[in-house]
């Protein structure tokens, strides 16, 4: 394998591992769940992305064919991280956050974790009316 590729792979491995470690350290260090959520969604995802890119370049150097498998995992992680974070924060708010005290008021209707949307779930509204 040529030296440029070798340096590139090594640097990507070190950067990826560093970000993974920083993300997990942030989860231990930060005080409450909402700030903890920032560490894994960003740092860890990029860390794994770096590791996968490193593996892509490494197998390109070894087999001389471009393996695009890894891009698929990276893409999947980048798409799924915001959804996981959204679900985790919704569940946390449902259990532990008081919407009257801590959250800004969005307008006439509240946040969807606490209040149902108008028109959604018509069956339930009919039940309440009857």
């Amino acid at each position: 394998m040529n030296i440029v590729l070798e340096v590139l792979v090594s640097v990507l491995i070190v950067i990826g591992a560093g970000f993974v470690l920083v993300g997990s350290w942030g989860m231990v260090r930060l005080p409450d769940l909402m700030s903890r959520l920032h560490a894994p969604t960003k740092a860890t995802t990029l860390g794994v992305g770096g590791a996968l890119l490193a593996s892509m370049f490494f197998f390109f150097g070894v087999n001389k064919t471009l393996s695009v498998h890894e891009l698929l995992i990276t893409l999947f992680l980048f798409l799924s991280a915001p959804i996981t974070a959204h679900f985790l924060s919704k569940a946390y708010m449902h259990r532990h956050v008081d919407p009257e005290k801590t959250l800004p008021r969005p307008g006439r209707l509240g946040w969807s974790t606490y209040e149902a949307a108008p028109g959604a779930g018509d069956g339930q509204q009919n039940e309440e009316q009857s």
Partner: protein
Amino acid sequence: MIDYALNFGLVAVSLALLLNLYSLFKGPSTMDRVLAVDTMVINVIALIVFYGIRQQSVMYFEAALLFAMFGFVSTVAYCRFVLRGNIIE
């Protein structure tokens, strides 16, 4: 050179997993523990990828892909369980 970088990477990811284990045991609320498990899954993917590079085998990617998908689905299912009380309505 890649060997040294890999050694560093494996040690760093293992340390990260130990930190996750600590926050899994410490985490005051249920959601903290779910978050810790989710992060653990992502870190295990990194570990699998590094191990695949060390073994020079492409077979580990299927494992990594399956881990990514099952981790995502299980986290979402757990959050839905906490939010709604059941998973499939």
